[in-house]
C-alpha cells in the first residue's frame, strides 16, 4: 500500500513535466503542421542554459529559470525564421527532414561545447524530503510540478484569453482566411514555434536540477513527447496535458510492478496501441486548439 502511494506521487511529479513537453510539441504541430524534431534538443539546451546561469554565472536559481526559458524562446524564433519560413508550402516530409538535420546540429553542438561529462545544477531547496505519512517528496520536485502546471496554465490562458491567442486560433483553423482578415500569419508562425520551443526549454530547465544535464538527455524526452502528443491527438493541447500524466502512470506502474527494463517501452507501446485502436488520439480531435 505504501509502495502504491509512493508510485502515485512519483507519477504526479513526473507527469507534470511530461505534460509540459507534450504541450509545446502539440502546439507547433497543431498550428504549423510541423513535426518538431528539434524538441528534444531544445529541451537539452534549456537544461544547459539553466546550468550556465546557475553554476557558471552564479545567478539566483529563480532568476535563472526565466533566463533559460527566454533562451529557448529566442532559439526557437531563430530556427523558425531561418529554416521553416523559407520552406512554407513545401511538403511535411521536407520540413520534417530539415528539422531532423537541425536537431542533429543542436545536439552535437551541445556535446561539442560542453563535453560528455554530465553537469549538475545546484538547487536552493533543502535536501530532506517532505514526509507525508509513508510517502516522501522532495521540495525540488514539488517546485518542478508547480512550475510545470503554472506554465501550462499560462499557455492555456495565452491561447484563449489574448489577442495573440485569437490570431493563433484563427491561423489554426484557416491560415489563408486569417491572412485575408489581416492576421500576420508569418509572425504568428514564428511566435508559435518560439512559444513551443520555450516550453521545451522550460521542461529542460526544470528537470536539469532534478536529474543531471548531459547532451543526449533530449533523445528519450523527444520520443516520449511524441508518445504523449499521439495519445492526446496531434494538435490537442488539453489532450497532451492529460497524455503526459497517463504516460507517467504507465511508466511508473510498468516499472514498479511489471519489469523495470521495459519502463521506457511503455510510451511506444501506447503509441502503437492508440494508433491501431484510435488513430486520432484518446480524446476527440479538437475542433480548435485550446
Amino acid at each position, binding site marked *: 500500500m505504501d509502495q502504491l502511494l509512493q508510485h502515485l506521487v512519483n507519477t504526479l511529479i513526473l507527469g507534470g513535466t511530461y505534460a509540459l513537453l507534450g504541450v509545446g510539441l502539440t502546439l507547433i504541430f497543431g498550428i504549423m503542421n510541423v513535426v518538431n524534431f528539434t524538441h528534444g534538443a531544445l529541451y537539452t539546451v534549456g537544461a544547459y542554459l539553466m546550468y550556465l546561469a546557475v553554476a557558471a554565472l552564479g545567478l539566483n536559481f529563480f532568476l535563472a529559470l526565466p533566463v533559460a526559458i527566454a533562451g529557448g524562446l529566442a532559439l526557437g524564433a531563430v530556427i523558425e525564421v531561418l529554416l521553416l519560413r523559407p520552406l512554407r508550402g513545401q511538403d511535411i516530409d521536407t520540413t520534417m527532414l530539415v528539422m531532423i538535420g537541425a536537431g542533429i546540429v543542436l545536439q552535437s553542438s551541445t556535446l561539442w561545447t560542453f563535453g560528455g561529462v554530465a553537469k549538475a545544477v545546484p538547487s536552493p531547496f533543502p535536501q530532506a*524530503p517532505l514526509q507525508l505519512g509513508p510517502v516522501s517528496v522532495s521540495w525540488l520536485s514539488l517546485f518542478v510540478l508547480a512550475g510545470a502546471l503554472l506554465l501550462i496554465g499560462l499557455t492555456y490562458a495565452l491561447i484563449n484569453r489574448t489577442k495573440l491567442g485569437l490570431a493563433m486560433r484563427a491561423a489554426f483553423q484557416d491560415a489563408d482566411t486569417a491572412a485575408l482578415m489581416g492576421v500576420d500569419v508569418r509572425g504568428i508562425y514564428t511566435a508559435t514555434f518560439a512559444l513551443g520551443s520555450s516550453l521545451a526549454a522550460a521542461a529542460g530547465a526544470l528537470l536539469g536540477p532534478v536529474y543531471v544535464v548531459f547532451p543526449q538527455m533530449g533523445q528519450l524526452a523527444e520520443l516520449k513527447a511524441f508518445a504523449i502528443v499521439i495519445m492526446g491527438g496531434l494538435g490537442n493541447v488539453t489532450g497532451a496535458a492529460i497524455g503526459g500524466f497517463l504516460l507517467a502512470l504507465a511508466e511508473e506502474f510498468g516499472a514498479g510492478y511489471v519489469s523495470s527494463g521495459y519502463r521506457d517501452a511503455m510510451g511506444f507501446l501506447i503509441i502503437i496501441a492508440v494508433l491501431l485502436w484510435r488513430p486520432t488520439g484518446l480524446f476527440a480531435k479538437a475542433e480548435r486548439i485550446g
Partner: protein
Amino acid sequence: MSSRFTLTTAIVLALAATGALADSIRIGVNEPLTGAFAASGTYVVNGAKIAADEINAKGGVLGKKLELVIEDNKSNPTEAAAVAEKLITSDKTPVMMGAWGSSLTLAVMPKLVDYETPMLVETSSSGKITTSGNPFVFRISPPSALEAENFAPMVSRLGIKKVDFLVLNNDFGRGAATDFGKMLKEKGVQVGLVETMDQAAQDMSAQLAKLKASDSDTIMITSAVDQLVLLFKQMAALGLKKRVITTGGSQNPDQIIAQAGAAAEGTMHLTTFLPWLPEKTPNPKATEYFIGEWKKRGFAFAGVTESFRGYDGIRAIAQAIEKAGSAEPAAITKAFWSVDFTGLNGPIRFAKSGPAGKESGQSRPDVYIIEIKDGRVVQPTL
C-alpha cells in the same frame, strides 16, 4: 561524375591519414569519448597522456618515442570492435589499451585473437574477460569476484544482514550482482531483490520505491558515476535511508560529493585507488607525481580515480615493450608476463587466469572501502 570524384577524394584522404610515423612506437587507445561513458573514457585517456609524456621526457622506450593513437569507441560494443580492427590493421599498433566497459572489452577480444595482438584492459570488471581463454588479454583492474573477495572480511564488521542489488543491465552490473551475491551467501548473508537499470536511464524512482519497501538493510549498487549521482538524489527524495555500498571502481567520489551533495552523506564505496590519502597508497611518490601533474594540466581532481588506470596501463605497456626488446605484437604479448612494478594501487604483475594453455593475465590490485562523511572522503573505522 561528382560521385566518383567524391569517392576518390575520400579514399585519398583516408590513405593520407594512415601513413605511419617510422620513428615512434604506436600504442592504440580504444576508449569511449562520446556516448554514455564519455566522461570516464576521457579521464582514462588524459591519464594515459600523462604516462606517455613522462616516459617520453625520459627518452622514450627502446630509444623511440611513444605515440598514443586515440580512438573513440562511442560507448558501443560494435564500434569498439571496429575501432580495434582499425587500430591494428590501419594504424599498425602492436599493442592496445582499452576498452573501458566490460561489454566493450568483450566485443574487442575476438579481434585480438584474429590479429594476435595484445591488449591491456584497464577498467573492465566482468569475470568473463580473463576466464574465456583469450591469451592476448592482460588486465590491471580487479574482476568483480576479486573485488568481492577483498570485501568479504568487511561484511561482518559492517553488520550486514540482508542485501538488495541495484545494478546496470550489462556484464558490469550483472557480473557484480552474481559475484557479490555468491560471496554474501557464503558468509551467511541473505540476498533479496536484484533490480536492474539501463545505462541511459535517468529516473530510477520506480526501482527505488521497490527497494524502499523491502526488508533488507543494505543496497549494493553497481553503476557509473553519473547514474550514482542521480540515484543518491532520488534516494534522498524518497527518504530511502539504508546502508549503501557501491562497487565497480568507477564511482568517482569527488564528483558524487560535488553533484549529489548531502544526498551522498554516509554512502560507502569500494574503490581501487586512494588519491585522498596519498601517503597510504602503495607507491606514495608516484601517486603524488601523478596527482600533481594532473592538477598542473588543469583537470578536475575528481577525475583521478578513473585516470590513474590509464596512467598505470600505459606504464605497464611501456615496460612490456622495453622487456620485449622490440615493438612486435608477439614479443610484447610474451613480455607482459614479466612486467613487474608497483603501480598507484598495488603491484602490477600478471598471474595466469582461465583455461590452461590459453591463459589471460590478471593483476591483483588493492581494494579499499571509503565513506563520504561531512562532504569528505574518509576511511571508515571497522
